């Protein structure tokens, strides 16, 4: 089976702190791949490693069978078709929403792709996330939910093959979460593979095809949601007994 992305023994350390330890993973084309784990488990760090913002201290990451870690710079990785959002939103504060999205459309799309359609791409991305009416607003004027949408639109504007979403639903209310979940589903239907980091279990369970659990930088397991839920290590390290009981009783499941 051909994987879209593969990690071989990925390690990332900051001085003495080893945030990611020898993690193997593989992401299939077209799936929604969840990464969960306690705070500080190294989820965001792994994402930064994939997008090239932090160097790996060991191992390799391959995209479509070709090595990207250590050989491609972040902007080159983006142009291969790997878009991302940031956990703590980082839109360009002094730019309008439209300009923010345009940055992705202008610079992030693969070279040699379709060209004369920046405006269409920008408009389409803004319409997709539903903030086209805010196109001329400056980012600091927007509430958190809107800022997250700006980031999502900006990442979509690069027309990614693989989209890395780092807690796009954290801090949103129930209704907004439903909306974004629906967006993620539609993104996948368009043929974009998604790596999703999330703490909200309802979202993770509802969306992901497979889930990888990290704990202290190490991979605990990686499997389908139901299997992961029943894994004792995962329950012990992250989900907790209460969650499993609730799930067994068929009750509402959220938060960790």
């Amino acid at each position, binding site marked *: 089976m051909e994987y879209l992305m593969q990690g071989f023994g990925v390690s990332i350390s900051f001085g003495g702190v080893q945030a990611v330890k020898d993690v193997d993973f593989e992401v299939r084309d077209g799936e929604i791949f969840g990464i969960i784990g306690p705070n500080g488990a190294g989820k965001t760090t792994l994402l930064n490693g994939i997008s090239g913002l932090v160097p790996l201290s060991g191992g390799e990451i391959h995209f479509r069978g070709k090595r990207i870690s250590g050989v491609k710079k*972040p902007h080159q990785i983006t142009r291969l078709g790997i878009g991302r959002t940031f956990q703590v939103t980082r839109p360009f504060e002094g730019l309008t929403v439209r300009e923010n999205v345009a940055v992705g459309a202008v*610079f992030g799309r693969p070279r040699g792709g379709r060209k004369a359609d920046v405006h269409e791409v920008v408009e389409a991305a803004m319409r997709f996330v539903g903030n086209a009416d805010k196109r001329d607003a400056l980012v600091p004027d927007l509430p958190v939910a809107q800022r997250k949408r700006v980031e999502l639109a900006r990442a979509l504007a690069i027309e990614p093959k693989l989209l890395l979403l780092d807690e796009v639903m954290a801090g949103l209310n129930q209704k907004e979460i439903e909306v974004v979940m629906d967006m993620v589903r539609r993104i996948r239907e368009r043929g974009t593979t998604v790596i999703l980091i999330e703490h909200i279990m309802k979202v993770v369970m509802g969306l992901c095809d497979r889930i990888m659990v990290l704990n202290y930088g190490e991979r605990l397991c990686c499997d389908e949601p139901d299997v992961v839920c029943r894994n004792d290590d995962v329950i012990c390290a992250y989900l907790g007994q209460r969650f499993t009981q609730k799930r067994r009783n068929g009750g509402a499941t959220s938060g960790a």
Partner: protein
Amino acid sequence: MRDLEFKQQEAALARNRLLAQTRNWPLMAVLVAITLLLVAAPFALGGYWMRVLTVVFIFATMAEAVNIIAGYTGYPALGNAVFFGTGAYVAAIAANELGVSLAPAIVLAGLGCVTYAVVLGLPILRLSGRYFLMATLGLMEITREVVLNLDITGGAQGQIFPSVTSDPVLANRLFYYLGFGLLLLTALATWWIQNHNIGLALRAIKFDEEAARAMGINTTVYKTAAWAVSAFFTGMGGPSTGISWPTSSQQRSTRSRPRCGCTSSTCSEERARCSVHCSAPASWSFSPSSCGPASQSSTILFLVLSSC
């Protein structure tokens, strides 16, 4: 660069904007009137005011140039004056050693500074914020020290730029229009940058460089380009001021004694503040009238950079 596609679309936007601006015709009329007035001014103004305006033009040019790196890109290039001096020296050395005339010498000055900015920018622009700021200051001091100790620059004596014209009125006009042209050129370049991909990239870098990288912007290329453009215009401003300045000192010095003081000007722009000591007159002490009109008509260039 990937400007092509965006250009077409931005061109459409720019057309709209232009249309909007023509609707704002009183402002346009005032701008056009001021431009025409400035073009005509040399025929009405005396030498003194022309020199004042020339200096205004040059320093406005430099402020615009600093704005490209410090304003748009957010890199506080405090030591941008280094290009002012480097440009002056490049032009003078080109003129003296290679026999280049004024116009190509000024362009060479700009290009020399571009090279300097690219070579130094690649390492220095890896720093950011205050670290970049300190590096530019250091660069300025180092350059000054090097210039003072090299033979080709004339050491502490500086360079004498060959005479451009012996007619002071003509010289004044020449440098007036040179300064005015430079200012227009820089304003045009800034306008262009603002309305094209490169401006978008620079502003993205300013607000979040890492996010810009994650959005596919080759930040190294863009910020180096921004500094190079900044250096280009500052570098052309150097010789334009340096060469023209003593022309007036010379006129004055025919009446008064040589002065050892220097003319110092300060241009401050946003966070960046570049200060240039443009001291020519010391050299007058060794260009006595006995050297005749020939040497009288040569202009003296002696630029010392300093952080004041």
